[in-house]
């Protein structure tokens, strides 16, 4: 496992479940800074309609919001996504701290499996942290744009079988107005 920071520059590193409007705004601001500001993701893709059906966790260094992650809940797995850490606070494993908070939250709700969609370049990093590919890599297969990965909530228990077609997961909930928002852009 990696070292989880207790403090940075004398300021305590903490996480908080977003419970108030202001907390959520902090999560949104961190994501906007990273995904829209740094990575040029369009607003309508970043704020995709799932934010008000999800749980948000914010990481702080002192009082400063520096990281965020969004958790969506399905019957057979919990899904951390939109993991972001403000650039100048990277390199301290704050992302890991957020994911560990996700894991504990999933555990407290009786979930057994966590599921993420990783970029192909990040697969090795996730594997080092105890995640594995949902579907084994086929030699010679065309490169994927997104790799589905899973890990057990309790590392001492075996991972149950899960099915998670990502093209469906990325879609909007059907009751949402589809106009203006991209539908199921990512295919596997």
């Amino acid at each position: 496992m990696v070292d989880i920071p207790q403090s940075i520059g004398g300021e305590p590193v903490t996480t908080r479940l977003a419970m108030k409007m202001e907390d959520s705004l902090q999560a949104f601001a961190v994501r906007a800074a990273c995904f829209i500001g740094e990575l040029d993701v369009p607003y309508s893709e970043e704020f995709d309609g799932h934010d008000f059906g999800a749980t948000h966790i914010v990481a702080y260094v002192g009082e400063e919001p520096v990281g965020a992650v969004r958790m969506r809940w399905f019957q057979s797995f919990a899904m951390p996504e939109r993991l972001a850490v403000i650039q100048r606070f990277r390199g301290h494993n704050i992302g890991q701290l957020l994911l560990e908070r996700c894991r504990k939250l999933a555990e407290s709700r009786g979930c057994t499996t966590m599921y993420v969609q990783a970029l192909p370049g990040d697969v090795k990093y996730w594997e080092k942290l105890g995640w594995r590919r949902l579907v084994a890599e086929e030699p010679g297969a065309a490169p994927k744009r997104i790799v589905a990965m899973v890990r057990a909530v309790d590392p001492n228990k075996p991972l149950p079988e899960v099915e998670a077609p990502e093209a469906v997961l990325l879609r909007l909930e059907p009751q949402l107005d589809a106009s203006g928002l991209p539908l199921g852009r990512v295919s596997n």
Partner: protein
Amino acid sequence: MALTTLATAMVEPVVTIKLASTSDELLQCYALRAAVFMGEQACPYWEEFDGNDYAASHIIMYVDGEPAGTMRLRWFQSFCKLERCVVLRRYRGLGVHHEINAWAKRFAQRKGYTRVYVHLQKRHLAMMEKEGFRRVDDRIFRFSDHEYYAVYCDLTPADNAVKLDTDPMVVNRPEDRLDETGILEKSVVRGATNPRAPHVARLRN
């Protein structure tokens, strides 16, 4: 012909500017500011979201339907302060910030203001001078890792500025649509029913 139309459509972005009037539009303003100030300029969260957001008007600009720019306006007795103006990186170079500035000036004019005031990062002075802004004095001040000038621009008083004798129902309209009939004017058909009337009875009108 069709090709020409297509080419024009591709180079001419559709720019829409309005007052942020819903929670979603406000979130769009905040997200754009976070993207530019926190993401690009490494501004700390608590400096960007400084406590004045709920004492201000917010403008949201869309380019081809996508949130692309924003500005915050605060209202003082002798001027309107334009601040927190951003254009998302991918929409820069189109000159759309001029449209935000122009919209903000017209908006302030309509509300009766004859002066707008800006704390301007030094690097933007030449650009804003072309828009008619002048330095207030020689002071240079510093906050959030940048050096600033105080600049202002005098506005021509608008003939249709809101004044004490403006039709009260015009004052009630959404502030960026003072020339359109507002929701409260539509309520007039209910007459001066008193607030103790049962809700259902009021709805029936």
